[in-house]
């Protein structure tokens, strides 16, 4: 049986530095999979390789058996793997609604000739309906006409996810979605992610907030210094000696 999303011996070198060194893990369909590790472990680099932002120096990423590593970012996105960005990367000068409409680019591909003549009314309405659905899902519907750059930080993060969600993704890659959120916002966002999982969306998540990760993920991959360290469910990872050592330092370093 082919795996849904498979990272196979992925390598990324920046000059002399090997940021990711032979990383392999598998993500099952319909689960929330966490990718954790201390700062500089290469999590975001891994993300950038899966989403097509970087071209790996070696190894492969496969989606349903098809190699997607080395494709350009929009080609990866068109295969159903959509990412969010670490910081509030949004179209700050556009309204919330327009941000979400850009997210509907894939399901409602604009056609310039139809647009000039006016034959794309159905598509435009469909795109608006989908954009509004995505905004409602993340509780942003009332902010539709605000400028995205003027939203609060929590709302900006939610909008980043709404843009990704609007495109009907199969896999969402979330890069530190809880950064800068207060506990209340984090809890609400965790609920939304569980609902996304019920919708059949597979989520791969990089996060530092351990409470959120442990409460949310079905499986967790831990990496350190670019290498695979451990994998398992939250309980296993919490008690894994190698993980504890990576985060807190080994016993031999203590006094």
């Amino acid at each position, binding site marked *: 049986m082919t795996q849904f999303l498979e990272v196979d011996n992925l390598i990324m070198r920046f000059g002399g530095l090997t940021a990711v060194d032979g990383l392999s893990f598998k993500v099952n369909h319909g689960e929330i999979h966490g990718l954790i590790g201390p700062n500089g472990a290469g999590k975001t680099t891994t993300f950038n390789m899966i989403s097509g932002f970087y071209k790996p120096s070696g190894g492969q990423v496969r989606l349903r058996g098809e190699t997607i590593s080395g494709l350009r970012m929009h080609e990866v*996105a068109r295969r159903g793997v959509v990412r969010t960005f670490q910081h509030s990367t949004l179209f700050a000068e556009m309204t919330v609604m327009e941000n979400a409409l850009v997210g509907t680019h894939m399901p409602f591909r604009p056609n310039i000739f139809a*647009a000039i003549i006016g034959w794309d009314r159905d598509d435009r309405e469909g795109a608006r309906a989908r954009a509004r659905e995505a905004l409602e899902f993340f509780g942003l519907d009332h902010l539709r006409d605000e400028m995205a750059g003027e939203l609060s930080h929590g709302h900006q993060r939610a909008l980043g996810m709404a*843009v*990704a969600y609007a*495109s009907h993704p199969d896999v969402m890659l979330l890069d530190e979605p809880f950064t800068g959120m207060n506990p209340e916002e984090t809890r609400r966002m965790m609920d939304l992610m569980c609902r996304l999982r019920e919708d059949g969306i597979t989520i791969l998540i990089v996060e530092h907030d351990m409470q959120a990760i442990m409460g949310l993920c079905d499986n967790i991959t831990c990496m350190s210094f670019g290498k695979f360290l451990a994998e398992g469910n939250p309980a296993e990872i919490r008690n894994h000696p190698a993980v504890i050592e990576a985060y807190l330092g080994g016993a031999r370093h203590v006094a």
Partner: protein
Amino acid sequence: MRNLAIFVLGGAALLALPHGLSFSQQEILVFLTLNILLVSSYRLLTLTGEWSLAHVVIMGVGAYASAIYTKELGIWVPVSILLGGATAALLAVLLSFPLFRMKGFYFLIGSFAAGEIIRLLWKRFRDPFGGAKGIKGIDPMPDFSIGIYDFDFFEPISYYYLSCAVVAVCLWILWRIERSPVGLTFHAVHWQDRLAEASGVNLRAYRTLAFSIASGFAGISGALMAHYVGTINPNSFDVDLMVFVLTWAIVGGTATFYGPILGCVVLTVLNEIVLREMGFEQMRPLIYGLIMILSILFLPKGLESLVQKIAGKRPGKDTPERSPAQ
């Protein structure tokens, strides 16, 4: 109903406009109409965030192409004008392969180099481009009659009416494109290309699309000019005119559709009519430059920000409502 009234009144004003002007002013009016198309098509390219310095040369590509089609191949002038635009658009697609490996400032310089290469090719090859002397004796538009009005293209008024009609259609198409999801995607490519790409937008394709549409309309504008003036040479499309296009866009502002048009109209009227009337013949470039510096200092968001202030729109939100609903 109110929109219809404005439309009718505006159309009547445009029809009546040349009758109150002198012959030389009528000629300026024709160029003004063509320049409006030039600067509006330029704005479509700036929607994606790229500023090109080859736009005027590409306008020239349309002019040369249309002139050669009529002279060498004997194609009917109206068709060759459209073919001139198509040629310019096609050339833009070809140019996009080397040019869109670059972004921002590098694209600016790269496009300048590409434009100069094209101009040098015109100068170098006497056949079919006519070398440094260019092409002379380009066929004028054939005269025709639409019943109520006889188009006689030795009269600038007739050519003004014709170009007004063509430019109006082109502007309408540009407007439709900007208001469409395609236009929204252009904005997205401009503001956050990484996020746009993550949403499945093919950046290279959309940049090329904007570049070729803008070039196509610039080509039509150039072709219209060629058949009006009757002679073109490489120096008709030099960097001087490009600087004018840039100043129209900057002084007018590029956040709205009408900004560059406003800049073009205001600066042309100022330069050609007001300053001439006041007798500043030799000093016109000096005063023109001064006006430009002053407008950048005191109106950094362009003339369009003045209009928005008068129309009572919220300041700071100078991006137009381009809700794709309509």
